[in-house]
């Protein structure tokens, strides 16, 4: 197969163009689709984050020598940090799944319960779904906060009180 002069020139130009485009445009990433997501990230039905604070085991933490600090409070979400001897060992959170309904679906595969609520374990995290709506999570920041600790601390939340919010 032979190429004419004009074909060679065209090929060279195409190559330059390709190099130029790939150098100028950013490389595709796994987040490109997600970055197109626009619109509200929370639902108008979700509760205020502040209304969730009262169900956290703040008193239990303090009586057991942990330093308990509320760290985030946004629409339908509240988070607290547990520290021991100045080191953050765990995160505790409550989120309203009306903001992200997909989150509640995974509990259909739950094989165990904590405090009578369906529970799921993944990596260093344990979660329960309360009243088919509120997700309560304990996350181990340090290995010293064990899987058993996560179960224990989830039970220390006022889960029944939280379920009352769904009525």
């Amino acid at each position, binding site marked *: 197969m032979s190429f004419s002069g004009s074909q060679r020139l065209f090929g060279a130009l195409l190559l330059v163009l390709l190099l130029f485009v790939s150098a100028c445009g950013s490389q595709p990433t*796994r987040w490109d689709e997600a970055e197109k*997501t626009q619109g509200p990230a929370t639902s108008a039905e979700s509760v205020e984050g502040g209304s969730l*604070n009262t169900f956290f085991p703040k008193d239990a933490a303090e009586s057991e020598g942990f330093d308990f600090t509320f760290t985030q409070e*946004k629409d339908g979400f509240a988070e607290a940090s547990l520290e021991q001897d100045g080191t953050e060992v765990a995160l505790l959170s409550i989120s309203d799944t009306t903001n992200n309904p997909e989150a509640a679906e995974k509990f259909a595969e739950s094989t165990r319960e904590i405090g009578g609520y369906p529970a799921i374990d993944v990596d260093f*995290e344990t979660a329960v779904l309360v009243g088919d709506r509120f997700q309560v999570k304990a996350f181990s920041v340090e290995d010293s906060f064990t899987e058993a600790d996560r179960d224990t601390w989830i039970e220390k939340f006022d889960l029944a009180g939280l379920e009352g919010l769904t009525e």
Partner: protein
Amino acid sequence: MAKPISELVDELPADNITVKALHALDFVMPGEWENLVGFEATIKKVARTSDQERIQKIGERAIHLYNDSSQGYQRAMWLYQTVDSTDKALATAALANKVGHSIGFLSFLSKITPKADRAQAIDLSLKLVVEVVAFCSINGLPGDSIGDFVKSLGKYSKESLMRMNALICFDGILPLGPDFVRMVIEILEGLTPDELEKNETYDRIKESVPGGNTQEQLNFIQQSFSSVSDWINGFVKEHDLSADKIVGSLKNFIEISDDKLDYLAAFIDMTTNYYEHTGTQTLAHRLVRRAMSEI
């Protein structure tokens, strides 16, 4: 919309003048700050996971939260970016003009103008105001009382603590001397609304400073600085910070003359964006924590 959050975190430099300058302050808090860069790496680290499906879900939720401007994250990012006054051309030239293993700062003396003490005092206090406003934009007002809120603000660690460390060293001790807290309070007390309005940094961020007019905003700036002055003095005392120690550590990568501290401070101010750099890391950290709780 401005740049996507995944891109902003991916583009954080692993090493540049800002990173070198921050690492020079590691001696104050050894091991506390890790220069974590990359959106995926941040998710892996914060959520302690290598499960690709989970990383994707956390990332997608984080992006959705960030893209919804009503959630406050974009505002916080804008503030962190805007309060830094980096001169990118100078930063690039400084890096290109490395002398041996260090940056030849002395050859840039003619291009550097130290700030007057009053301007420096205003800039320092405005960075603190940005910190408070960005904190609220990112985290809301956690807890049920002012006490809860102040406690959450006091729990600074990792990149947030490094940002405060850099603020104290680079914007406090180096340009204004060891007694900078008392000096800034005095300057702020004598400041008039007219003078504040002439400050460039204030002009850039004034829309985000709480207060209905310049006088009220000035009051907020004064109160913000006063309320953290004890904390700053405690930090300086606890770590026995001095210009000598800071300069000694910076000498590892910048060629420094000891009698040009105000020029050195101006050089760091012009060539680094430590507020934006560590602010992006703080925001990404908090955003990922929320996202992993919500998925």
